[in-house]
């Protein structure tokens, strides 16, 4: 793979970033927008994380110490919402903005002004969401899954504001997804056929389809809530002929694809990092693409595995159990391919690779517990316990979050032209790794032993493991402040990075100088495989 002819970047000198405040507010540049997305995501991660700290502090010991049950529920709800919609999704969109144009040899995203709009909606949406905490009756207190009728007839009045903030987030995601699809389909450098696209681009293309199919359904279901609450309809009330369970079907039709929205781009990232540090091409490229597509398709047929205990008819229960179990197959293919990539490679363990290896191991553990949850009769015992909490934190924290951190270490040199401090990076890794397992592994035990989720206080037999979890959470949390320090240090005083700091890395983005020029490829490079 190389870049033919001189893609001159200097002729753009007159076209560099504007100065000051308007550079960010009025920008149409994919890198500026990507940067803003990433910082917003990090800020949200800290806010959502602080809420998790409130949860863990309250659960440090049995009994009510710090917060009242009503407020605890608001923290749980907001923590889930902010982490999912505020931290992970915007972080992936930020990475898409930064990387996709560079990886496919495009000057920018296909629809640059809309790109800026998708970003700027978010601070308003999250502002509105956070504002609900200060409204009469408090903020959303019905879990991030906001099941009706707790979230309709029995909700505090702020729920109407919550609904509109969800609408705004949905709008932003839909516009972002349209932009990604248009960019990938339309802006690839000559010679880059679909089956030669880098995997991050592939996974994002598929993720964008998921977003487009799932987010409007979420918009629809919150609209039904809005009508039930304020305009007297009875979608979710048996008294009028509706059904509270209808809410769950609609929510999870969105919600399950949503969890894959949070993991497919991560798969893409890992598929870049593992080959780079194994100095060996990714094993089974085409099967990786097919596996991703299969996961996406299956993800629309498994939603009711979150509803095994709501009393589905037996046939539905069986169908959703089988379909869910099937997802292990393509996911397994991905894991096996990564491992075969490492097999007989020439490995070095820089920070991004450490995070990537931890991703593979810990995500797989999370996948295994997912598979256990998929076994419907067993899920009767797991459902709504900390076993589920352990499952999804294993796929989300060492899954989504680790992949984002790994991506940041991997591409930071390209973004800011400077290297991070490798030693600090390794410390960050081990610090996080220990904290994370200490936090989330014991949750498997308390869950199996019978501790329900979303409770502010618990019976005595759960005490010791909860204390370990809380200690682990504080360790993990402080490690992320350390990450902030590493990134800032890198940006301000890091060593100058060469165009390609990684021996084994391939891809168009590494052919650009570091930091990447303001407009990536004004003249499309010739892509040769």
């Amino acid at each position, binding site marked *: 793979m190389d870049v033919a002819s001189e893609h001159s970047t200097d002729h753009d000198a007159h076209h560099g970033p504007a100065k000051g405040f308007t550079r960010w507010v009025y920008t149409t540049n994919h890198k500026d927008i990507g940067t803003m997305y990433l910082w917003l995501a990090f800020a949200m991660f800290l806010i959502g994380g602080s809420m998790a700290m409130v949860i863990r502090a309250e659960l440090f010991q049995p009994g009510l110490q710090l917060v009242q049950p009503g407020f605890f529920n608001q923290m749980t709800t907001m923590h889930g919402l902010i982490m999912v919609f505020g931290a992970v999704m915007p972080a992936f969109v930020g990475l898409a903005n930064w990387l996709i144009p560079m990886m496919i040899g495009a000057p920018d995203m296909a629809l640059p002004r809309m790109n800026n709009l998708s970003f700027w909606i978010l601070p308003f949406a999250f502002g509105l969401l956070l504002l609900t905490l200060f409204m009469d009756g408090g903020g959303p207190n019905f879990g991030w899954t906001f099941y009706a009728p707790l979230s309709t007839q029995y909700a505090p009045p702020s729920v109407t504001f919550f609904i509109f903030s969800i609408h705004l987030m949905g709008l932003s995601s839909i516009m972002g997804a349209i932009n990604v699809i248009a960019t990938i389909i339309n802006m690839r450098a000559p010679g880059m056929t679909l089956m030669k696209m880098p995997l991050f681009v592939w996974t994002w293309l598929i993720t964008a389809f998921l977003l487009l199919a799932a987010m409007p359904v979420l918009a629809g279901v919150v609209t039904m809530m809005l009508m039930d609450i304020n305009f007297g309809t009875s979608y979710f009330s048996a008294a009028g002929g509706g059904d509270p369970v209808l809410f769950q079907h609609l929510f999870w039709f969105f919600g399950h694809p949503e969890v894959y929205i949070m993991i497919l781009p991560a798969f893409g990232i890992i598929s870049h990092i593992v080959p780079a540090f194994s100095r060996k091409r990714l094993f089974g490229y085409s099967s990786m693409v097919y596996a991703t597509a299969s996961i996406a398709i299956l993800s629309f047929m498994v939603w009711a595995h979150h509803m095994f205990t709501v009393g589905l008819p037996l046939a539905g229960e069986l169908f959703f159990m089988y379909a869910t179990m099937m997802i292990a197959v393509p996911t397994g293919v991905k894991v096996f391919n990564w491992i075969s990539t490492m097999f007989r490679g020439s*490995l070095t363990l820089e920070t991004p690779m450490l995070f990537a290896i931890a991703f593979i191991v810990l995500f797989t553990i999370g996948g295994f517990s997912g598979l256990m949850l998929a*076994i419907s009769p067993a899920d009767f015992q797991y459902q709504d316990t900390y076993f589920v909490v352990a499952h999804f934190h294993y796929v989300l924290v060492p899954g989504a979050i680790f992949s984002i951190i790994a991506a940041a270490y991997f591409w930071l040199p390209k973004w800011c032209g400077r290297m991070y401090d490798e030693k600090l990076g390794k410390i960050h890794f081990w610090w996080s790794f220990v904290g994370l397992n200490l936090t989330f592994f014991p949750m498997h035990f308390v869950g199996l032993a019978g501790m329900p*989720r979303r409770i502010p206080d618990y019976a005595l037999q759960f005490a010791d493991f909860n204390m370990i979890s809380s200690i682990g959470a504080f360790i993990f949390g402080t490690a992320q402040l350390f990450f902030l320090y590493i990134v800032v240090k890198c940006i301000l005083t890091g060593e100058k990075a060469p165009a390609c700091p990684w021996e084994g890395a391939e891809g168009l983005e590494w052919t650009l100088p570091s930091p990447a020029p303001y407009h990536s490829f004004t003249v499309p490079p010739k892509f040769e495989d």
Partner: protein
Amino acid sequence: MVELNLTKGYWLFIALYLVVPQVSADLKYNMPVGVTEVSHAVHSLHMTIFWICVAIAVIVFGVMFWSIFHHRKSRGAKAAQFHENTLVEIIWTLIPLVILVAMAVPATATLIKMYDTSDADVDIQITGYQWKWHYKYVNDDIEFFSTLSTPADQIKNEAPKDTNYLLEVDQPLVLPVGKKVRFLVTSNDVIHSWWVPDLAVKRDAIPGFINEAWTKIERSGTYRGQCAELCGKDHGFMPIVVEAKSEQEYSAWVANKQAEKEAAKQAAAASATKEWSHDELMAEGEKVYARICAACHQPTGMGIPSVFPALKGSPVATGNVQEHINIVLHGRPGTAMQAFAQQLSTTELAAVITYERNAWDNNTGDTVLPQAIQAVLDKQ
């Protein structure tokens, strides 16, 4: 421990996971084996799948760590060039598929068994309320509420916590051993979920709908569980206690319960004719208020703004008495304010209404007598 964690924290936990469940079978690290045929089946499904996953993990991570160790650049490894092989892709698609089918077979059998609610000996209708359970023995005409009995000072850390902290109730659900019991689970307000791990029964209580489940307990004893669906503020405080009794003991209990009901009826009649003084009603009312109403309207009567209205100074609690009686008897449909006509006796109702009308500076001076409540009830 801490030192070990720093180096191999993760593997330590794996080791714990592998060893501990075997040693202390259904103690506090693993799913309980339980006391029904179904719960045994579920437990063995759980363990089978767990071990399959462990086996896969050992192989997969084994290969991975072996590669990481032996194919290190620092050990002079040179990268090979292969990057595709259709045959292995097919193999590692098919093998997991076969494993999954092997898992699905026993799972399907267990599930079908769980769904067979036919031929039950005893029917119990279970209704979730914000934040208590109501049990109705459909065949025996017995019904009662079951509420958390852990005292507030334990929750607030003002008293030492008992062994069954948060897992104890005033009136447990009593069930016969060796009989097939069918549960008809529903809810009065939001979604709850009735869960007792030892029975491997968890069913969501959906307002307006009924879900069926069943159990056949093998051993007498006390089995504890909790509400397993977020149902609002006190979701963490609505436990379930099941007492399984031998058949004779169970029949005795039923007879006793029915006798109690008669006695209660007479007591109610007596109290209805009794001359209650204002102060007696206030004292009784304060107790009822603290037990039932304070969860929402708060001990101070201030409620929670925009969620639970304050009764202190409320236009209802200081205004028309009939309206006050009406809302307490019938609730407000579609809100958290439930109907209390069936939950409390006429005396308790009269007392709590009297209390609300005079506590927290509401000072209306009104006294509501049980007879007044009875009159309203009779009219319907």
